[in-house]
């Protein structure tokens, strides 16, 4: 039987191989009493029992897991949740149907939210719904997840996740799901790889016996061929060894075997990712994606909101440099009311700096917030998708104008150094033409534009290779220009965290990498093995 390859989105990194387990929630049929008073009593008892069950579970966990369950306890303890169900029971609807309908309406409401954080809470409500249904129907909850299993289902509830033992391996392969869900957060914390958005999980004939989950690449392979499996096992062994060696050394500076000091910076999408992280693991922050500010707010975020967030990140960095990228919307990151809809090819359309210059009303607000924050730490500003020097010049003129206005009003501010991302081949080929204070290589886009291959199109994914000599040559060229001009060059794309590429990237002359916090330990370990 041929292996089946599925591509989704990564929600928790890591590699896992194990028995393929389809998780089904079995709910037995229930005998209705037909009497609204008895049905009301049955639902009340079921809610009480579910609350007690949750309270027991809360006592066995701590930290994030406890917070998540306490949220469920609070929701279940609120009469407003069951109000609609009790009304329906009075009107003659059986308790289980009434409860399911009331909760499904609530779930649909969350699912329709603009904000991904609210959409991600649907899993908690499904969990609450099924807990009470299980009590009403008098059946045991879904069969426990066997240790080490690759769990396949549409989505999974936090309590089903917590009920399993993830210390001995195992992973999640979800048809839908979200990287912002509570389960994704728990999976990252427990080191369980998780891929979401795989689409319908289907296969021909018998159910696959084994599966492997690549939480780094966001792929799942069902019934892998022996060769695929062998290759994957080698990667797992290498990753396990590297992780063990790396964890202890993550706060030490990154130094190659031949003694070169390499700066390791962090990529963050939201300040909350920094909570609980020791700033000592990094030499600063190389990329703050500001899209989250725009996604989370219904309108566009105002200056003070942006300023407060930038300040918080600077405070965390405690004097280390922080590079903030101006809004990089468009392409695969649409923002309602801002980006241009229905472009025939969004990746070649109005995105990044092009969008900011087309919407100076929005861009000016961000530049003002950045200039104000720059008075309180080492802040640098980076422009995405720059193709020609005129774009940098236009952005610099807008920044200067805003600083002039702030100064005229007596508001504290400073002019942050203005650098560019090098992700359009034109910028790499003529890097010397840009009066940039620094260059940061966006390897994801640089690779897809150089190779003309998108990484989310499975059929051409092999071509989307940052290790291709053409891409490496553009990186090396940019590094050379940076050295000649005396400005920093860093790399902030996903390739920085791919330790298979570390040797090749260091060979281009790069001395600064910016990666996700979770990748720091492994990258430093990989750097330590590189000899010129």
């Amino acid at each position: 039987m041929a292996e089946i390859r599925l591509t989704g989105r990564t929600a928790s990194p890591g590699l896992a191989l194990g028995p393929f387990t389809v998780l089904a929630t079995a709910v037995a049929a229930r005998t209705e009493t037909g009497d609204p008073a008895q049905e009301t009593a049955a639902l009340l008892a079921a809610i009480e029992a579910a609350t007690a069950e949750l309270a027991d579970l809360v006592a066995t966990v701590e930290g994030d897991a406890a917070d998540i369950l306490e949220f469920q306890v609070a929701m279940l303890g609120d009469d407003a949740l069951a109000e609609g169900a009790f009304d329906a029971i009075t009107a003659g609807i059986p308790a289980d149907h009434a409860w399911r309908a009331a909760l499904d309406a609530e779930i649909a409401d969350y699912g329709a939210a603009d904000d991904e954080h609210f959409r991600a809470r649907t899993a908690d409500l499904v969990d609450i719904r099924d807990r009470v249904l299980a009590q009403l129907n008098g059946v045991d909850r879904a069969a426990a997840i066997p240790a080490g299993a690759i769990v396949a289902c549409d989505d999974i509830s936090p309590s089903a996740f917590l009920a399993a033992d993830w210390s001995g391996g195992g992973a999640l392969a979800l048809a839908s799901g979200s990287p912002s869900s509570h389960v994704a957060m728990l999976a990252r914390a427990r080191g369980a790889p998780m891929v979401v958005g795989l689409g319908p999980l289907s296969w021909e004939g018998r159910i696959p016996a084994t599966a492997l989950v690549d939480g780094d690449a966001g792929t799942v392979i069902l019934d892998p061929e022996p060769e695929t499996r062998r290759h994957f096992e080698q990667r797992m062994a290498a990753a396990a060894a590297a992780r063990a060696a790396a964890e202890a050394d993550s706060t030490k500076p990154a130094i190659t075997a031949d003694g070169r000091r390499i700066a390791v910076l962090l990529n963050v999408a939201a300040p909350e990712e920094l909570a609980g992280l020791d700033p000592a693991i990094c030499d600063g922050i190389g990329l703050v994606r500001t899209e989250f500010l725009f996604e989370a707010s219904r309108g566009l975020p105002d200056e003070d909101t942006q300023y407060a967030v930038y300040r918080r990140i600077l405070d965390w960095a405690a004097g280390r440099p922080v590079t903030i990228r101006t809004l990089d919307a468009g392409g695969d990151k649409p923002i309602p009311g801002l980006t241009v809809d229905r472009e025939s090819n969004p990746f070649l359309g109005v995105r990044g700096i092009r969008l900011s210059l087309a919407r100076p009303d929005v861009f000016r607000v961000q530049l003002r917030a950045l200039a104000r924050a720059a008075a309180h730490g080492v802040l640098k500003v980076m422009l995405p998708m720059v193709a020609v020097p005129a774009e940098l010049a236009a952005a610099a003129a807008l920044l200067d104008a805003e600083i002039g206005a702030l100064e005229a009003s007596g508001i504290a501010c400073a002019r942050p150094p203005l650098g560019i991302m090098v992700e359009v081949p034109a910028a790499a080929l003529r890097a010397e033409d840009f009066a940039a204070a620094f260059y940061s290589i966006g390897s994801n886009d640089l690779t897809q534009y150089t190779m003309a291959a998108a990484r989310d199109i499975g059929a051409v994914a092999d071509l989307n290779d940052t290790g291709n000599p053409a891409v490496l040559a553009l990186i090396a060229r940019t590094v050379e220009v940076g050295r000649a001009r005396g400005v920093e060059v860093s790399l902030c794309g996903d390739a920085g965290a791919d330790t298979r590429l570390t040797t090749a990237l260091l060979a281009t002359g790069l001395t600064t990498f910016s990666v996700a916090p979770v990748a720091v330990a492994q990258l430093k370990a990989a750097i330590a093995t590189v000899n010129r």
Partner: protein
Amino acid sequence: MHDANASRAAETFMPLTASAVLVNPVGLHARPSVKLTQCAKSFASKIEIALAADGPWTDAKSPVKVMRVKAPQGATLHFRVTGADGETALAALLALVHDGFGEG
């Protein structure tokens, strides 16, 4: 009798209002909602929230209703508090929002 008391209480205590911007990274979602309702429930006053100064007002002591507001980060949260401990309650609620609900 009960109704008479309620209307007297309403006469005695004018509603206090105030607003604050949600600065925590993910808005008024799961954990912040729980913290807000727990704080609200620790006071006797009637406490309501809204996304606009003229409502619609939502009972701040109900996590289910607070979640239905779906207040995103950057939204301005309006409070309306009526009762004997209204001033203390309002101060505590505003502090909670300003503090980002204690989240990173």
